[in-house]
């Protein structure tokens, strides 16, 4: 029996230990560095980027995929090229629901890119350039730090890169002297051609247009590294034909999609501004290896003596240095270089520091804190995590979307009538009016549901569904709204769809069971509450006129406290204090034991300004409130009613008051 490295051993060592041992034997320091790099990468993505905010989307990511269990959903992806990588990406993207699992997925993607890139450089005999393998993960850091979503196209690139590695690995055997049957020559070329074709067909079905990455690298490899120009030419022709034959003729895709799907230059990405975010980085990812390989190939042909092409030899480097300077003592630079090349630990240390410094710089400078704040606030608001909403809002309080969530949080914590002017406020933010209406819908449907504007919320949600897909966040709310409206037929469809998602099955099944046992949901307190506040008047004009809608909500149910507080907030924001004071009589219906601070201020402004009395029943503004308005007036008068001059002093003391907002038209300035 032959013995050798593959011979039987009496002591069976686990595979993972063998791999680790092998890696450490080759480059122990490099292995440790790679481990630390990806550990830090993972921690950064998990704790700083927090993929759960990508899942939430913030209304910016419009191509975050949905995923449903079952054959029906999967079947659709088989009908077009690139469908399978989309399906896989859709599945893996769902793990962004939890930050730690999402970070794991992203890290795995980055690591595989690193591994395959390193393998490629090793395979083309340029180990000195193996450091380039860290470039793709660093570029990924930039993409995710900006809260851009390009998972699908990067996954397609990864699959193509794996196929490149496979091609190089399998076709290399043709040069093996121990396999005479696969020697160079016609048989070897035929084998390589067949291999290329088989991989092309499989890969194209998997990744559609990203196949060109594989084709380009294969052509370059054949032309410049194996010096087989006929093969390269043949591959080039096949690369042009495969998408047409498979994509257009077999799958029936449009010719544009057949050649561009899954590529970052697909119209499905470039047609939308939000999807174009960081697409240049994805271009860089796609072009990195082909351009590098092309350059190396040319160098190989025309620059034989290039140091890049020479294998690294620790001892030889310092011997070379001595040869160049025979008999002369080395100068400082030469000494440093000599030490650098001679000491693997020092070299590793310096390279590691450089790597981590670059990665750290990318992570720092690319991090989009504003987008993170917006996504985080929406995420917390959707989950009714009010303290987190208010805390996070301090980081970026000026966005109308943030203000909308803040007001909702303030209402639900009983503070809207006390603290709303501690934050920046604007009439457009209360019920959100924005240029991009679908983005506005994404941020306000929960406010509408809470108020009782069910139809408005439903309309906004289905328009969001068209733009963002059948996101579980949307399906859940559509199911809820239809249950509130007693449209059980529609509700059941949404619930059934939701039960096929990965992380919302429990909620859906719970309501499916409830509908069985309690068809009218008469025992569901939340549904009953929403039914009680639901707008009952049907009129087209109520759909867009905020003030009318809020007033009508109150007419339908005088105990709709949120509608009341939002209406009062609206009157304050638009300075309609006459209407504000007309609604004070509702205090009794709503059980206010005292006049909230901001309402006191508004009442006092009205009374002092118009000299008209306001009936408050048993309630009166507090002496403190009276003292404040007088102090405010005196301070303003002291500056001869010069607003800019009085700003600093008034902001310091009254920046969170309605007095300040009423005078200046903005708020949230008190620190």
């Amino acid at each position: 029996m032959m013995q050798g490295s593959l011979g039987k051993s009496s002591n069976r060592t686990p595979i993972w230990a063998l791999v680790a041992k092998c890696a450490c034997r080759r480059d122990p320091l490099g292995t440790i560095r790679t481990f630390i790099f990806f550990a830090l990468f993972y921690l950064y993505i998990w704790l700083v980027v927090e993929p759960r905010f990508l899942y939430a989307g913030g209304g910016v990511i419009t191509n975050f995929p949905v995923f449903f269990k079952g054959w029906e959903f999967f079947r659709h992806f088989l009908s077009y090229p690139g469908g399978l990588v989309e399906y896989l990406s859709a599945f893996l993207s769902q793990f962004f629901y939890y930050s730690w699992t999402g970070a794991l997925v992203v890290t795995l993607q980055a690591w595989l890119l690193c591994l395959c890139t390193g393998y490629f450089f090793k395979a083309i005999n340029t180990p000195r350039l193996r450091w380039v393998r860290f470039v793709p993960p660093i570029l990924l850091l930039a993409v995710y730090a900006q809260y851009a979503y390009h998972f699908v196209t990067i996954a397609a690139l990864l699959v193509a890169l794996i196929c490149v590695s496979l091609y190089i690995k399998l076709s290399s055997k043709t040069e093996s002297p121990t396999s005479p049957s696969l020697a160079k020559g016609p048989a070897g070329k035929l084998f390589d051609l067949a291999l290329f074709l088989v991989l092309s067909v499989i890969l194209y079905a998997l990744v559609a247009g990203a196949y060109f990455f594989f084709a380009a690298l294969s052509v370059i490899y054949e032309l410049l590294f194996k010096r087989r120009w006929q093969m390269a030419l043949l591959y080039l022709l096949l690369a042009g034909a495969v998408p047409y034959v498979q994509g257009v003729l077999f799958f029936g895709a449009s010719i544009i999609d057949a050649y561009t799907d899954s590529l970052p230059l697909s119209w499905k990405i470039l047609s939308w501004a939000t999807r174009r975010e960081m697409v240049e980085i994805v271009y860089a990812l796609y072009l990195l290896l082909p351009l590098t390989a092309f350059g190396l190939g040319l160098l190989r042909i025309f620059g034989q003596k290039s140091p890049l092409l020479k294998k690294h030899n620790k001892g030889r480097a310092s011997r070379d240095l001595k040869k160049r300077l025979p008999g002369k003592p080395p100068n400082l630079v030469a000494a440093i270089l000599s030490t650098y090349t001679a000491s693997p630990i020092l070299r590793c240390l310096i390279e590691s520091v450089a790597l981590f410094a670059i990665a750290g710089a990318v992570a720092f400078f690319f991090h989009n804190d504003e987008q993170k704040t917006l996504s985080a606030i929406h995420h917390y608001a959707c989950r009714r995590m009010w303290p987190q909403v208010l805390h996070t809002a301090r980081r970026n309080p000026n966005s109308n979307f943030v203000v909308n969530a803040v007001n909702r949080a303030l209402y639900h914590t009983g503070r809207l009538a006390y603290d709303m002017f501690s934050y920046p406020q604007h009439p457009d933010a209360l019920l959100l009016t924005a240029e991009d209406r679908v983005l506005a819908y994404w941020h306000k449907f929960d406010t509408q549901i809470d108020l009782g504007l069910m139809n408005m919320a439903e309309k906004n949600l289905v328009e969001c569904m068209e733009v963002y897909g059948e996101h579980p966040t949307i399906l859940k709310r559509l199911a809820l709204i239809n249950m509130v409206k007693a449209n059980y037929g529609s509700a059941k469809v949404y619930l059934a769809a939701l039960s096929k998602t990965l992380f919302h099955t429990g909620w859906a099944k719970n309501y499916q069971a409830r509908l069985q046992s309690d068809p009218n949901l008469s025992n569901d307190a939340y549904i009953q509450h929403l039914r009680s506040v639901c707008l009952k008047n049907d009129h087209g004009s109520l759909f867009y006129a905020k003030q009318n809608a809020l007033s009508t909500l109150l007419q339908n149910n005088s105990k709709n406290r949120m509608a009341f507080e939002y209406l009062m907030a609206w009157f304050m924001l638009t300075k309609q204090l006459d209407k504000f004071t007309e609604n004070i009589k509702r205090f009794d219906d709503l059980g206010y034991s005292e006049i909230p601070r901001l309402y006191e201020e508004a009442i006092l402004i009205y009374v002092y300004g118009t000299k008209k009395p306001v009936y408050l029943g048993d309630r009166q503004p507090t002496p403190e409130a009276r003292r404040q308005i007088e102090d405010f007036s005196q301070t303003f008068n002291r500056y001869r009613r010069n607003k800019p001059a009085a700003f600093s002093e008034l902001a310091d003391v009254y920046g969170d008051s309605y007095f300040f907002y009423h005078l200046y038209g903005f708020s949230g300035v008190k620190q």
Partner: protein
Amino acid sequence: MKQEHKSKMPRVACALVACVLIICALVYAFRENKVAIGQYNSVARPPEIYPDYSRAVIPPNIAPLNFLIQESGAHFCLKIYSKQGPTIEVFSRSPKIMIPENAWHKLLDMNRAEQLHFDVFVKPKASSSAPKMPNDKWNKFDTITNKIAEEDIDSYLVYRKIPPVYAAWRQMGIYQRNLHGFDESLVLSNKYFGEGCLNCHTFCNNRTDKMLVGIRSPQYGSSALLIDNGTVSKIGTKFGYTAWHPTGRVAAYSINKVNQFFHSSRTEIRDVLDFDSLLAYYLVDSKTVKTSPPLAKKDRLETYPTWSADGRYLYFCSAPLSWSDHRTVPQNYDQLKYDLVRVSYDVDHDQWGELETVLSAEDTGKSILLPRISPDGRWLLFCMCDYGCFPVYQAGSDLYMMDLKAARQPPEASYKYRRLDINSDQSESWHTWSSNGRWIAYSSKRKSGVFTRIYLAYVDEQGKVYKPILLPQKDPTYYDSCLWTFSVPELVTEPVRITKEKLGRVVRSSRKISVDMPVTMATPTAGALPSHDEPWRQERQ
């Protein structure tokens, strides 16, 4: 190394053989065993099944009516039998019954005009069996009986699949379904022209060799794709609701200034109003568009054209235009009701006759919409709803049938019509006739809320419409979680053979047949055809 290689081969071969054997064993173990049901307990009621395929008339060439048995049990059995042919037995551990296609087709084909029986057996779960019903005994429910029609239904059904709202034109496609089986294929989707709207697919005499599809694209403009015997051309204007003249030489279509608005508190949120509309017609031979005074009155809204079977009359809906502001939904939008009118037409001389009212909204108290005439010219199927022009958004929209050839009552009376029994408390609309006039397909929102589904119903020679069946799917629970809306079904005798790539290419092409409109709508501005480049609401990022 070679010897090692050789010694590995038998091991690999053994492993492969072992795998195959294991797989075979698993398949055998988990196959549904046929069980001879000897004794059983009779349950004196029919079983609850979904969809409800009971007491209906079914096409002899329809796909298997797979359904879900909504009874609690551990094992399920279905026996299907008719007058002739072997009984089909289906055993299942799940309540989903998947009927074998070949056996189904053979049974139906040999029993046309006969009854078809379903016997459902359920074996209770061990823990839930009542004392009087031993565990090992099956429960048999009352037999479900359907009738197999004599006449086939058209082989294909073409429909539009869209999300419940289509304001942003993201996902939209026209699909065709082979009614013999479950295959559904894409005719064209808006992905082939960078997203836009496509609808109003119309076929001449239920055939696909002559058809029209309306396109609205921000990038490539509004147009109508004309498919004529394998040739695809683009007409440079959008056709609204379109109807082919039986000769195929003329296509009448509507031009609608559509406005969608929303209800703040109603089950159906959306509503539609035509601020203005008129009818025009396209002459295929001369490639021209024309209109005529009866079709385009300044003080009327004309829409939903349909031709009589002999092509001598054009029927359509007409309502008074009582507003001049085309930006604001009028306060009295819910008072708008359409009459059913017709005008005679001589296709050889391109001459129109006088307008006459067939059925007036004043008489019915409802808005009369979507007239469709059976191929034999006898029956006029239409829907009526409380107001407006878009019955799919009106829960009260119901289907009605009018006998065109029945003797009229004294001249002052109108044609007789009746409300069909197949209506539900939700919207019924978008109806179509099969080429033999024996089947109708229509969209209904019964039981599915905002999601329209397609139903098929048999119409006998006396015009009686039988209980409809839901368009069958391979998985009977498909509709439970299906978030698509199926609208505008059209029965056709053959599939659309032009590839979607070709259709998309024509849409994207700049070559088109230019047409000029000789008359404008009831607005002060004279000039070209109204633009349909803007969707109702175009998404802005």
